[in-house]
């Protein structure tokens, strides 16, 4: 089979969906090549046109080509409008996997469309207008155009069912839950934490990630803790983050050890996970929750919001709190800190839970799924 892979989002500053595209593409290639599949990587995809493709995912193998890499935006737009009017994609792939929410018209290939989440409809304040207008158009295009659907979690499939009841069944569209996994190798064993090992929050600063709750909880924690571990926020500036930034500055001014590390590159992020005391995931909403599964793989105890996909991913390994209650989070933080035995237990449970997720396993099931289409 010839398989097209949408790596358009990997060319820009990467967030969850882009990491998913990158990691799953690599895993699909790794699993697929031995089975005789060949691959095309698309660095522009439908309406997703990049100014610069140099940072996009590349896989060095003669059986993996990247026909659109380096194409300038005008030419890329022209290319996709020709595809829409009947020009086959180079290499004429049998199946094309979309990861970027885009659903171009592909008259000669089967489109498999990945649904990351439906927050843009379910929680309108958690999506920018830009995101909403693109996602709602493209998702509906996918209904008209895609041969199959991937959902990054069972929860996302339920959200889809909530807004489009019975659609999958009525239109007999095959679908598969294709969960993510950690991008970093799992820790061999739980690591004991240093006395100054920080609390860690990973995710860009945007309303959905609920950094405000983490900061409020941290303030409470700091009042009552004897160790007063620092708090580290890793993630790009996102959007609508002025209030959180102001709160951050205020806490820093009062001398609380809170640090915003900004956008953190891969290698540094692995080190952050490795050196942290525990991971906090206070999000209001997640489609999957890549940081959570990476925290599990790093052998970190995880305190996560009880919303959306997070309990599905964290299973019994993580402890949950209501995201509207910083007090509950603070209490959980203090409890974790004050009972070293409990931390060790949780860390072991995290590692155990992380074994349920692997890119190779997901890639294998996706390949089987596409073969059946």
């Amino acid at each position, binding site marked *: 089979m010839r398989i097209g892979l949408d790596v358009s989002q990997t060319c820009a500053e990467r967030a969850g969906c882009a990491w998913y595209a990158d990691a799953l593409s690599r895993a699909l290639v790794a699993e697929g090549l031995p089975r005789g599949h060949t691959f095309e990587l698309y660095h522009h995809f439908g309406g997703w046109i990049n100014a610069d493709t140099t940072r996009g995912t590349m896989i060095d193998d003669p059986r993996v080509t990247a026909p659109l890499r380096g194409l300038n935006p005008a030419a890329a737009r022209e290319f996709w409008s020709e595809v829409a009017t009947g020009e086959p994609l180079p290499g004429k792939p049998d199946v094309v996997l979309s990861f970027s929410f885009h659903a171009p018209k592909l008259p000669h290939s089967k489109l498999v469309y990945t649904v990351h989440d439906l927050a*843009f*409809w*379910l929680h*309108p304040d958690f999506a*920018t*207008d*830009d995101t*909403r*207008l*693109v996602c*709602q*158009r493209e998702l*509906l*295009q*996918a*209904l*008209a*155009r895609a041969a199959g659907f991937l959902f990054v979690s069972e929860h996302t499939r339920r959200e889809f069912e*909530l*807004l*489009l*009841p*019975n*659609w999958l069944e*009525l*239109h007999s569209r095959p679908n598969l839950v294709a969960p993510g996994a950690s991008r970093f190798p799992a820790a061999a064993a739980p690591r004991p934490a240093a006395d100054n090992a920080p609390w860690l929050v990973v995710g860009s600063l945007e309303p959905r990630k609920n950094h405000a709750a983490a900061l409020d909880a941290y303030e409470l924690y700091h009042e009552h803790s004897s160790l007063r571990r620092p708090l580290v926020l890793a993630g790009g500036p996102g959007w609508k983050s002025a209030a959180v930034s102001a709160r951050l500055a205020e806490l820093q001014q009062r001398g609380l050890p809170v640090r915003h590390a900004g956008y953190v590159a891969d290698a540094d992020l692995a080190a952050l996970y490795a050196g942290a005391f525990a991971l906090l995931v206070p999000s209001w909403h997640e489609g999957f929750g890549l940081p959570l599964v990476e925290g599990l793989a790093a052998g970190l105890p995880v305190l996560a919001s009880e919303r959306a996909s997070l309990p599905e991913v964290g299973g019994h390994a993580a402890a949950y709190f209501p995201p509207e209650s910083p007090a509950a989070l603070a209490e959980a933080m203090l409890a974790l800190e004050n009972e070293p035995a409990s931390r060790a237990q949780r860390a072991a449970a995290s590692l155990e839970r992380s074994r349920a997720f692997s890119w190779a396993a997901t890639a294998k099931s996706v390949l089987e799924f596409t073969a059946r289409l």
Partner: protein
Amino acid sequence: MVQVSFILPLYNQLAHTRACLDSLRATVPAELAHEIILVDDGSTDDTRDFLRELAPPHVVLLNDRNRGYAAANNRGARVAQGEFLALLNNDLVLTPGWLQPMLAAFARVPRAGVVGNLQLNATTGALDHAGVVFRDGGYPVHVRTDPDDFAVAGLAEFPAVTAACCLVRRDWFLRAGGFDEGYLNGFEDTDLCLRAREDGLINLVALDSVVRHHISASPGRGAHEFRNARRFLARWAPRTAALEREWNLTAARLHAAAAARAYFAPLHRRLGLGAPALRRAHRRALAAVRQARLARTGRIRVGVDLLRLQAGGANGGVKPFVLAFLAEIGRQRGAEFNFAVLAPADVRDELAAVLRPGDYLLEPGDNIFAVRRRTREGWRDDGTLPATDELPARAGLDVLYAPFGQSQFLRPGLPSVSLIVDLLHRDLPAALPAEEVNHRHAWFTQVARDATYFQCNSRQVVGRLVENYGVHPAQCLVTANAVQGRLPAPGALPAGAPEEPFFFYPANFWPHKNHEALFVAYRLYALGASSRAWPLVCTGHPDERMELLRELRDGLGLKDRVVFLGHVPDAAFAALWARAGALVFPSLCEGFGIPLLEAMRFGVPIIAANSSALPEVAGDACLAVDARDPQALAETMRRVAIRTDLKEALVARGHARLAAFSLAHEAGRLAHLLAAAARRVAP
């Protein structure tokens, strides 16, 4: 018993106050039982020292701070004991015999409400007030001509009079709640007079009472004009517009009658009644009267840049709005305005219905504009004009109106009015291609610099324009798109329209119209309502995106429930309104939203997004919903479709709200702005 309580609010200007009090004491009839109530409104000069020395009949009240004209008078009225209140500005100079004719008016006319008098400019001696009428869409203006024509035995009735010098009955004034303290030094008196009319009273000018007035010596008047006018128009606009029309008719009749009388007198003597020569002379006399009126005001040539106008519905709501406004201005002020419309040739027929004989059409060609003059028979070629920057001067334009916002002929030196209908490129840039956002930003920047005034179709747009482009609010006029009356009586339903009630969404297929969320919501609603579900009807200019939305509809499995009718002619469109079960208007960004008014007119309940200008226009006559949220939208659709009481309440509220939207009124205000810009006077 005290007959008259004189009330003078004071704020500085001690010299005026002294002169006014001197003239008052000198002219109060000796036998009149009276008191003089002086309300100091926080003066900072020597006024307070002066007041300390006063003895009865003076009564002195001191406000701790400046509370404004209305509050000061109201405070005086509360302590007054007289049967009448004489409200006086402190910059009046009263002349002998001024009071008696005003008092006599109450004796002669039991229904007298507020009685004013003639006021001369104290500096120039010119007549400054002989009553207040409404003009230019319901704004109060002073009558400054001799009102003898309207007088009966020394009294003339006017819709309102100024309170600079006026007499009211104390018990009525207090019962009516006095002046409205929501105004700040302006419009209080007109507001009071209109309330008197509501109570069945009439407002009079006593023509034998003459005083002198130091015009605009009172400080703090202009500062709140914008706010005051808004408050006044919000409360009175439809009625003042009606009073304006009534007044214009009366004035025209009286003028014509007087002119004819003057002309006929010698003819009567020479020819006797009924002769053909007399009838001819009669006609000539009337024509002369019309001509004289025109000569007094001068004709204003308004250039209208409609070069972006397209045939059919591609322009969206702007087109019906502009055409209706131009037609209405022509109807109201045809003799005063002459239009020169720049527009492509393929909309000539549509403009023929709007323009009047004598108006011009300038059609673009290769480096020239072909000039066509509208005649009763059709169009007559009238040469060409070069398509250069000199066009406005060569075409003799007094003012340029740019209904599409930008115009290549906008220049700082040329008076102009730009219509701004939304700031979509700022409020929802995601709905436009990036190059369109940049393009719009560039021309908004230019228009904000070059246009004299901005016509905005909601307060929301004014706010966004002020915030984004630094335009001064005083440059902005809000006119509602009150074009709900443009549609004819319902004709036949267009082919493909459902017979049963349906959800109706008339909107072009632009991304910000949010059809996608509506479709998902509609599917949720339809699954819940099963066989009783109303269909959904979408109209709009057919384009590529309509084809896309058709594909999305099919993908959702809604092919037989959601109908696309394309652009529908007016009579069929009206038929759709007459049949619709509810308007659903989930647009993410609107500067106004004409369908809201059309729904109100046709008695159709409204569901609308709770953002941009929609809440301002729809008020309580709609169910507001977060249109980004398909579940919320679906639930609202379900409620409207099944709950008869809710439907009826929404329709009733819509009907009541519609009274606030009058095309005559809104177009009158635009005409006023255009005329003011053309004459280079403040509107």
